[in-house]
């Protein structure tokens, strides 16, 4: 790869905390944010979830947004993460008109639409929320809180949306379309997809167990994370340092089934392989894989096969962090990319919590605290429809 893509800032909010510091503390101390449902209004209290520990009102207060402003939970979480990312990268308001914003979401304003749908159909109540149902509105509400970005677009590839936003951002920098782009994703839990996942029978009523023989489904989570991607030249000019390098990325389609992964993990295999090829790095240089690892029987087996195809019998230390946050769906690609940056900077592999028995023919995850220097990390995010992406995040000084 010719031009280095620098990550010069990051911001995150999820069930394990608001901001990079709380997130690191939770990861290092194996503190999960998954628990009984508190904020979402649903009949399905039986499912543990990884909610961000704030009500919409709490987030409004936190962001200093008045009651009258139309917004959605996904946009609010997006603003919290974006605020931290911009500050972290020392981006000032007057720089924003020259910066692009690329976000991933699938639910968009569904949290409001599912509450008010019958009103939309039958009467005039809550009609002000109709215009913010779509995904693009969600990105714009998030971005507009900080200024007028040079361009805004939205990726919607289900659970790999944020990872694909990161890939687009990198390609834009490499084409000279911008010097700085802010990329990532945001997604709140909605009744819509909680029920959708439930109808597909892929939710576990217990704490999820990725890569465990007894795994029985996923726990939903929510959150947002954004990364600031920047060219080397721009960072040098501004005097900001790279926290990590996006040294490779791959996107491939499993092209197998609408909601299930192929038995041989074809899409996942291709995405990871492409990321390595772009970075021109051999598989044995990978120090850690942050797996997609949702905890569904299907995903973890398919992803295990993909890892074994690429790495043979030398699969690097691997873990899923979904037990910490729940599956943050569209935001998972950027939230977990932030986890990878923290792991690189602090020299540890996040523990695959709640694990006890290996999957037959699967890969054994890192289930004990594991301190070591990391140089190259693969971060996987796979979506419904076989939209599989993998990011390769590396230490700035090798």
């Amino acid at each position, binding site marked *: 790869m010719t031009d280095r893509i620098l990550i010069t800032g990051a911001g995150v909010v999820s069930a394990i905390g608001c901001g990079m510091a709380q997130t690191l503390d939770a990861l290092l101390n194996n503190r999960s944010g998954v628990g009984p449902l508190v904020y979402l209004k649903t009949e399905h209290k039986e499912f543990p979830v990884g909610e961000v520990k704030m009500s919409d009102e709490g987030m409004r207060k936190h962001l200093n947004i008045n009651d009258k402003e139309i917004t959605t939970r996904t946009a609010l979480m997006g603003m919290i993460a974006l605020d931290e990312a911009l500050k972290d990268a020392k981006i000032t308001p007057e720089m924003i008109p020259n910066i692009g914003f690329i976000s991933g979401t699938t639910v968009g304003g569904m949290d409001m639409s599912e509450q008010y749908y019958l009103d939309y159909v039958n009467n005039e109540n809550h009609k002000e929320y109709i215009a913010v149902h779509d995904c693009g509105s969600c990105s714009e509400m998030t971005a507009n809180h900080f200024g007028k970005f040079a361009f805004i677009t939205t990726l919607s590839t289900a659970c790999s949306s944020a990872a694909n936003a990161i890939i687009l951002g990198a390609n834009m920098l490499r084409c000279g379309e911008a010097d700085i782009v802010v990329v990532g994703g945001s997604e709140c839990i909605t*009744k819509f997809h909680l029920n959708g996942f439930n109808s597909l029978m892929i939710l576990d009523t217990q704490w999820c167990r990725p890569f465990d023989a007894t795994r029985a489904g996923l726990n939903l989570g929510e959150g947002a994370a954004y990364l600031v991607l920047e060219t080397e030249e721009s960072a040098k000019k501004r005097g900001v340092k790279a926290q990590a390098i996006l040294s490779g990325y791959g996107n491939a389609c499993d092209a197998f089934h609408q909601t299930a992964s192929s038995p041989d993990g074809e899409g996942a295999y291709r995405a990871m392989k492409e990321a390595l090829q772009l970075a021109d790095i051999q598989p044995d240089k990978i120090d850690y894989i942050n797996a997609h690892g949702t905890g569904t029987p299907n995903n973890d087996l398919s992803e295990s096969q993909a890892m074994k195809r690429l790495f043979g019998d030398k699969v690097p230390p691997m873990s899923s962090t979904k037990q910490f946050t729940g599956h943050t769906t569209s935001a998972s690609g950027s939230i977990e990319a932030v986890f990878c940056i923290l792991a690189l900077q602090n020299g540890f592999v996040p523990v695959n919590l709640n694990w006890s028995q290996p999957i037959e023919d699967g890969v054994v995850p890192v289930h004990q605290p594991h301190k070591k220097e990391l140089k190259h990390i693969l971060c996987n995010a796979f979506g419904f429809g*076989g939209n599989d992406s993998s990011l390769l995040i590396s230490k700035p000084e090798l």
Partner: protein
Amino acid sequence: MMEKKEIYVLSAKQISVQQPLCEDWMSQPIEYQQPFNRSIDPSFKDYISPIEARRMGKILKRAIATSKEALKASGLETVDAIITGTGYGCIENTEFFLDALSKDGEQMLSPTYFMQSTHNTISSIVAIQMKNHGYNVTYAHKGTSFDSALQDAMLQLRLGKISSALVGGHDEMTETFYNILKKGGMMGHDDEMCGEAAVSVVVGARNDDYLCKILDFKMLHKPTMERLKAMAAKFKADFILTGISGDHKSDEAYIAEAKELFGDAKLLKYKHLFGESFTSSGLGFYVAAQCLKAGKIPTHLFVNPKDITDKKPSMILIFNHSDGTNYSLTLMEA
């Protein structure tokens, strides 16, 4: 700045409120009096088996048909990437699921509608049909959803990551959803007609039978007039394809701005034929490509009748924006 590779439009196919999968609208446009109309569908049995089709919403069937036709017309066996833009995704299935959720509660929901309700269902079902493992993403960003997909394809073509891409723009509209959007002030202004969009185009390196060339593309969010003028200076063409839609106040501002930016270039329109939706700009792209290929611009596309000319167009600029928020400029050459 990297050197710009030449990018060609190899094929472009549509299903819309005009005759499907053909260019009859050039000589015999269908005119509508009422604001809500659904697309004219072709027979889908040539593209999808009846068993598969039974479970699919209209948006998916149309995407498969236009994609297969576009691939066939491109002369390529396969493409390196499938990139889709859709403002609302599979809204009919979303509506069914929301309706059941709201009326019947949370205990008896079937997975059928949910499985085909996400935005990326479209791109992935096309990939499954074509057995395509290449790059596959979906953009959902209002009136620039198709434009975002096109931009992605162009970036990767320029980087040499891919040599061809199937770019789609797909939105469907149900009567219930149309009425909701109207209530939300997003549709149904004055003479505005809504139109479902299903457009598939193949872009890549030149072939024998290409439609036109894409010279440049730019997307902007809430640009200042100064920035727009700087950009317009780089996107010069004799013909400007605008997205005026029949919304009087908005059209007035649109035309005034286009005149300020592009001087006496001739303004064209297409939404009076194809209608308005989040991905109608995909139909605009299709219209521009077909006009360049045909070497003529049908008289009914001119905003101002005194501009009508039978001059062969050499370049068309697609000037797309929605409510002055998201702009895109696409410069196409014969």
